[in-house]
């Protein structure tokens, strides 16, 4: 049994049973009419064979099909979905076991940010009081392979991070479409022993990526048992469209028997209705469409219900993550996934703010607290994301690790038992008859057992300046200095010998 993550003992049920049934019905009705607009011929053929009806059309430059999927086709697909999905890991103790009806919540990183935010302390002299102060100066740099390695290594150190989705979009000039996937997967796998979950940019490299993973675990059968790589496919383009290239990948991954997240990310107010009912009915339909295609390709293949419903910002139509509607959408989806007995991939902790600070903290803490209450198995986007997923800040990731610790602590059980009540009465009686009437001595046991929350570890000393970021920056340096857990020399050698396109500078033994 996986010990990672946190058990949410009584998941918050925002929707009643009747409301879930209504959403289920609405989503199934939508899949029938208007149906999905599918750009992938093989998916259409599979759906038709299963009982759907399709009508060819032309959308802009592309062939497409309107596919009306009857409810029974979806229900049949749901019947074959496995209730447990394991995300493997280089270190088997770090495996994440997702049970559709279990309540264990895991936190992970993601997703491809274009920028890495560097924090540099710099001295300034105040023109007001003439005193010198150190302030954090920030600079956005383009993502690179080196940053990706650093973020994977950092993610290994963060104790509340349970799975790794690459969070830096590499933009090195020697990384091309033809060699990107092998390099980014290697960069991740070589620096972290936790589950690696990721999208594949180029279909042709999927085979090489799988081969790399097989070398690491020792063969195809081992990989199916311990899938050190799992995949994400954004197969849906909201509203209700199936993307050809991604459907191709989804089907291939299903046939390999490796875990895959069906990710759909409609934006309330532009690509989905903004109201909760409309959003959830649509995003749920989209997730079901993806799951159906996956199960038709390989019944019983491990699949995860991935819903990333966000809200549009009303003044520029960009995504918004730190708002109440976001929590409503996501909590509802976690409940729907549970209703279908499919493990759920959800989201929390993206800052809409561009830099670490008060706004980012408010937005992040809000969703870290709310969304996990619904107990989705996976919570992604949870580390270091700012500027609505455009920027990754390693300092912010360290701060987020602490916030997630707080969010997790919230779910500790109350400890109220007959025995504890008896102990309490005895303690109060003792203290009342003691000289200082102090409970201090009774706190020590819990303190030593780690049952008392540690407080904010980055508190500053200054009375006229917030020093949090400076302190986090120092702590980050310590974390980054820790010894990496690279793959063994033999494994690296075999990978570099057998997988074409890897850049020699990634080999730690060179």
């Amino acid at each position: 049994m996986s010990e990672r993550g946190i058990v949410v003992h009584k998941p918050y049920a925002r929707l009643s049973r009747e409301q879930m049934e209504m959403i289920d019905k609405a989503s199934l009705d939508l899949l029938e009419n208007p149906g999905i607009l599918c750009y992938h011929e093989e998916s259409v053929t599979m759906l038709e064979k299963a009982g759907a009806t399709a009508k060819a059309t032309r959308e802009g430059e592309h062939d497409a099909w309107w596919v009306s999927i009857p409810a029974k086709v979806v229900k049949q697909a749901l019947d074959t979905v496995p209730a447990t999905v394991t995300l493997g890991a280089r270190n088997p103790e770090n495996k994440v076991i997702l049970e559709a009806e279990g309540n264990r919540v895991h936190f992970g990183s993601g997703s491809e940010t274009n920028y890495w935010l560097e924090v540099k302390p710099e001295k300034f002299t105040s023109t007001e009081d003439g005193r010198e102060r150190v302030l954090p100066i920030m600079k956005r740099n383009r993502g690179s392979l080196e940053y990706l390695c650093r973020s994977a290594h950092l993610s290994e150190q963060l104790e509340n991070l349970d799975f790794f989705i690459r969070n830096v979009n590499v933009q090195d000039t020697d990384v091309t479409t033809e060699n990107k996937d092998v390099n980014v997967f290697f960069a991740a796998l070589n620096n972290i022993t936790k589950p690696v979950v990721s999208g594949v940019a180029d279909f042709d490299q999927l085979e090489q990526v799988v081969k790399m993973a097989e070398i690491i675990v020792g063969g195809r059968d081992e990989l199916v048992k311990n899938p050190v790589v799992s995949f994400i496919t954004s197969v849906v383009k909201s509203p209700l469209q199936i993307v050809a290239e991604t459907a191709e990948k989804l089907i291939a991954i299903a046939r390999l028997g490796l875990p895959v997240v069906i990710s759909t990310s409609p934006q309330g107010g532009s690509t989905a209705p903004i109201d909760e009912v409309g959003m959830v009915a649509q995003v749920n339909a989209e997730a079901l469409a993806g799951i159906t295609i996956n199960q038709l390709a390989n019944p019983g293949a491990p699949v995860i219900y991935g819903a990333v419903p966000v809200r549009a910002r009303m003044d520029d139509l960009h995504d918004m993550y730190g708002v109440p509607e976001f929590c409503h959408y996501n909590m509802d989806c976690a409940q729907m996934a549970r209703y279908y007995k499919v493990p759920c991939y959800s989201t929390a902790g993206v800052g809409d703010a561009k830099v670490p600070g008060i706004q980012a903290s408010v937005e992040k803490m809000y969703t870290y607290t709310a969304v996990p209450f619904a107990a989705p198995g996976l919570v992604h986007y949870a580390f270091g994301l700012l500027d609505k997923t455009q920027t990754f800040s390693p300092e912010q990731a360290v701060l987020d690790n602490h916030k997630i610790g707080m969010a997790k602590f919230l779910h500790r059980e109350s400890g109220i038992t007959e025995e504890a009540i008896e102990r309490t009465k005895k303690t109060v009686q003792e203290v009342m008859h003691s000289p200082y009437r102090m409970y201090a001595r009774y706190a020590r046991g819990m303190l030593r057992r780690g049952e008392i929350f540690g407080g904010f570890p980055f508190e500053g000393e200054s009375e006229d300046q917030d020093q949090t970021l400076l302190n986090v920056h120092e702590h980050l340096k310590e974390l980054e200095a820790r010894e990496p857990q690279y793959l063994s020399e033999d494994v690296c050698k075999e990978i570099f010998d057998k997988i074409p396109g890897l850049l020699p500078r990634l080999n730690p033994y060179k």
Partner: protein
Amino acid sequence: MSKDLIEQIVNNVLQGRRNKDDEGIEEGMTGDPGVAELVQKALDSGTDTNDILLNGLSRGMELVGEKYETGEYFIPDMLTAAEAVEEGMKVMEPHLVKGEGGSGKGKVVMATVEKDLHDIGKNLVSIMLKGAGFTVVDLGIDVPAARIAEAAEEEGAGLVGLSALLNTTMSNMGDVVKELEQKGLRDKVKVLIGGAPTSEDFAKEIGADSYGKDAFAAIREAEKLLK
């Protein structure tokens, strides 16, 4: 009479009502004539097309812009209003003399470049350009460079607007510039680019004429480039 109609067109643009079936921002407007019906009525009553265009549709859109600036209106209001203007333009089209206001402020071919499927931003730009009086031919998403150049030629467009959201696809914008050059169209067709990973520097690098950070910049730049 026609003055009153023009006023009503302005008001219905503000309300974002394409036709009588649409609801407005205010309650209880459904059933009343919308922009399409009002423009038709104005044409029937012999109102000058320029009057409808400038004092009705464009004026309405200007007011919408002002309300957005002051924070009274939001993007959904702008988009809805722009769609209402588009409906009005459709009714106007057969009545406009070719060349003279025929394509409003000019013709723009818009597309998201090859291998890129993101279109929320591109659609926003397309709709807003239409609302601002440009004629927009939107080719959709994942459009190969050659097809974009071909469409620019066929349509006689003065401007090509390109969108990319992936750093892996933004280089395809450079291919469009090259295609236009190869076809000998580059001096006739300007290129405006946008999308989160792009920038002014990138526009220079690939030889595009301009970069727009958002839909408002798109309108400003399009106006400059098509002057």
